[in-house]
């Protein structure tokens, strides 16, 4: 068992959700998405992002349009489709459920130890 593995598994789980939520906030191109994730302290590699975006697009959760740019080749700007929005809602619900559950379990633990401490103090 190793922390890198587990951490990677955790990230894998929430990645789609995070990306979709960024796109939900507004049309974005991949570089943009990376920057936003970075500012939220979620370090994401472009090589991870691009395949994911393509998959989501193939599943018709995302759509894109080409925008010409002066400083470089044209860019793809992604936005959520209706199906994407619905999918996002489900993801959100799942995430909330999960987060609450985890919180509850870890809080019980904290509560228990607090209780113990409390008990130990005369």
């Amino acid at each position, binding site marked *: 068992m*190793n922390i*890198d*593995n587990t951490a*990677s598994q955790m*990230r*894998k789980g929430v*990645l*789609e959700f995070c990306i979709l939520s960024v796109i939900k906030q507004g049309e974005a191109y*991949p*570089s943009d998405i990376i920057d936003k994730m970075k500012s939220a302290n979620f370090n994401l*590699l*472009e*090589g*991870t992002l*691009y*395949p*994911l*975006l*393509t*998959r989501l*697009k*193939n599943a018709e959760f995302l759509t894109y349009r080409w925008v010409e740019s002066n*400083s*470089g*080749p*044209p*860019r*793809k700007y992604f936005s959520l489709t209706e199906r994407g929005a619905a999918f996002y809602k489900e993801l959100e619900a799942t995430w909330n459920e999960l987060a609450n559950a985890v919180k509850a379990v870890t809080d019980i633990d904290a509560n228990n130890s607090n209780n113990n401490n409390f008990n130990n103090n005369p």
Partner: protein
Amino acid sequence: MKQVININFQGRVVPIETSAFEILKAYTESLNQHFANEEGKEEIINDIESRIGELFQERITKGATCITDDDINAIITSIGRPEDFEPMDDAQPASSSSSSSSNQQQQAGSNFTTGHKRLYRDENNKVIGGVCAGLANYFNVDIVVVRIIFIILIFSFGFGILPYIIMWVAVPSTSSTQLGGTKKKLFRDTDDKMIAGVCSGIGNYFGINPWIPRVLFLLPFLSYFSRWGHWGGFWNFGDVVRFTFSPTSLIVYIILWIVIPEALTTSEKLEMKGEKVDMNSIKNSVMEEMKGVGKKAEKFGKEASGFINEKAKAVSGDMQNFSRRSRGGLGNVIAMFAKIFAYFIIGCVCFGLVMGLFGLGIFSIGVFPLKDYILKGEWQNFYAWGTLVLFIAVPIIGIITWLIRKIAKMKNNSRILRLTFGSLWTLGWVCIIMLIATVTQDFKSSSRLDDQSIALSNPKVNKLVVTSSSPFTKKYYARNWVRFEPFENLLDDDTAYVRNVYVEIERSQNDSFQVTMKKMSRGHDRKDANNLASLIKFNAVQSDSILLLDKGIAINKVDKFRNQLVVITVYVPLGKQIRVNSGIDNGHVHFGARNWGNDWDNDYYDGEQDMKWQHDVDYVMKEDGLYTLTGRKADGWNDKEETYQNNKKKKNGSYRYDRIQDSIERKIDSIENRKQQKKDSIERKAEYLKDSIDRRNEAEKNKIENGTGLIIKPEQEAVASVIMPGVDILTNI
């Protein structure tokens, strides 16, 4: 200073350093492979390349003149390497599992990709090419042990170097599962196999026609076979080397067969036939690694000596403990030394046995061409084959297999194996015994034929020189091998010439030279032997003072070799000279008659003291035997010395030129003869011409006197003498 090239990247022209371009190419390659089975992979890759293009533009607009190595590396770092990409779902190609914890993978030598252990070269634990490290990994043996084995192989047989190089090139390195490596794996291609698909697999890996490695493997065998027709040169060192190369290639093939996995699943087959391996990159990496070898060798030396020191300390520590613990410490230590010594001796003996068997195998294969001249019938052939395969090949294969099993730590089903090999070898013993028995049967009886006398064209010459049409003047090593003297022969298609000729010199009863020939042979009974003896074809022809013998007894495959023998006895009259040239006979000759009984073949190995005369020396026959020209009794040993001394005094030449001088003298003699003959014939012709001229002149004179005034030639004269009277008669009518 670096070369810069322009590339068309995403629709724009980008100046980039060549080395940076190489890195970029490798990166896009690795992306290609990473997303090989991904749906929409072109799109993904295109996106990534767009991003790279964007970053290029950024740098250029910031004022860089071209994209450098650092730029590329920075870009790659920011986008990430394929193994760092996080897998999204389970429908991922197998290669993505290599992305997890790549560091651990590198150290472990990349055995995880498809859950089936594959042979790689471990580039991270390498000294030269990581071959031993990979092997150690694959066989689960400690790496230092593998290296020691390799070094022992190289130093004792010179044999380890070639397989090492082959494996270095052919076995993929661990870096092939990381960035920039080509994903091609070396498999055996069993769909396209001749024996085991080794050559097809190699062909696929290198992108060459599989027949090229096949020819390479077979080449040593072919070159060996082509030498069978000239096996007289067998003892030539070059041929022995060439012969020993072919088992090496066979062993290499077998090793590759064992070690390279078969391409079973479709994905493996695809991997096997993947993209071309870039020979350029291999060359570059080889050159780089060579530079690091020196340092690595040092390190390894230290490692190895450290290892040995450790072990030695352990052993000596053990021994000390041992001796301390026991009372009669010294006695026990001696016992242990004795045990070690005994093991060592046993090891040497076994080794010697194996080498002996191997040598016997090589020898019997070498003698193979002669098989048909000796063996007759189905059974003998069968026994010969049985001996070769069962008696000789089986223990060799058995020992090699045992060694391989030991090294690979395979499960030891030793009972079954031992039983199988043991029984096969016993069968081999049976075969060899039967072979010897049946062959000796055929040589059992000897013949008994009368002497045959050779007609001499000119028995009254003064000197006879005995020579042969193509004398053997080379010294073969086999001269010392008693049994194989008759085997010095020439192979001419399917006859062999056996130089089983003996020359004897005796005094003649009258004043002519006389030559008789005794033909002898062995056979499985007296009649057979006599028959074979009478079939011997051997000629002796005299021309002037040379007695020309055949170069050997012709043996063909119908009348087999049965130690046929010819004895030429030359009777020399008193006062005449004789000389026997070297290279025509077997060298052991006696002066004086011998009893040619059944055991004639034993007489000839009595030793040199029986040689009463030497080759290439002139002798003259006197009342009581042969004398050299200087008046000494023929004495075998010293005659050559004497001639040598004489020649030295005469011409100050060296011994080596003695023979050449003799042949020159001979040639001079024959030239003189011919000159004389020519002179004679010219004289005769001249006489004839003179005569005819004289006659013509006379005739002319007569004609002039007679008044016809015609000048008539002698032939015409003859005709005229017929016509003229006719004319006369006619005109007188």
